[in-house]
């Protein structure tokens, strides 16, 4: 076995390892995205709690706070029209560079 054979086999090994690591990298990216969605859901729920505790709904956005695990999240909300004047709906959207997540909740206002 000469140097050429050795080089060829190492090159094949490198290709196989690269494919393996590339797949693992995809898993990492997917898991990181899932982690961000989870944080977004929590932030959206917190914002809904604050909106429900407040009075009349009006569209708005929260200043971007401290980054969470290195990611900054933008929070905005609006109030979709409802067919019942006593029913207020809140819709909160949390966005980060990889995507966004929305949650809605409603409150009966006598």
């Amino acid at each position, binding site marked *: 076995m000469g140097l050429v054979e050795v080089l060829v086999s190492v090159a094949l*090994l490198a290709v196989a*390892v690269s494919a393996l*690591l590339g797949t693992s990298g995809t898993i990492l990216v997917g898991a990181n995205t899932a982690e961000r969605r989870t944080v977004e859901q*929590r932030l959206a729920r917190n914002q809904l*709690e*604050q909106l429900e*505790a407040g009075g009349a709904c009006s569209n708005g956005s929260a200043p971007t706070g401290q980054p969470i695990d290195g990611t900054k999240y933008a929070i905005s909300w609006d109030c979709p029209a409802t067919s019942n004047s006593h029913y207020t709906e809140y819709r909160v959207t949390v966005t980060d560079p990889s995507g966004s997540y929305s949650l809605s909740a409603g409150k009966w206002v006598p």
Partner: protein
Amino acid sequence: MKALRRLLHEQSGFTAVEMIVTMALVTVVTGGMVSTFAIFDRVQTAWRDRNQARAVSVVAEEAIVRDARVYRVVSASGATLVLQAPSDGDGPTFTVSYSVNQAGQELIRTVQPGNSQTVVAHGVANMTASCNTGQKGVVHVLLSIAAVGAGPNDAKTVDDVPGFDVASRNQTGSVCA
């Protein structure tokens, strides 16, 4: 003897250059694999701790939200959250407080009078309760979870960031109102 010499002479093998090149290449490939798996290990450990923190936090949140929805907030400062049932005017009232037993790493719910204690969640190292500065009537709770880790030397505290907000429905006399 002649045959042995001929045999030795005819033996083929790798040259030093081939061995050096091969070992260098294998070292590079293996080094890449090892460092990548080390990164995977760190990331997986962080996920495991965070998942544990969220699981514990969900259990704790359920009890706190249930009480905060009904009772008014008497104190939400630091490691203790105290809620009080509103009195109807002709009877005694009672308080419900949440605190952490740091020795046992438990979130404790205590009802007074009577000092009735129940364990709400295990694995809680600390709790920070505060009134939300952005919106009146909202309590913010941040739990620090005692992550078990892979062994006794791997235990650590993980904050369940960003914590959770809960709107207290009863604002009469609430410190967060």
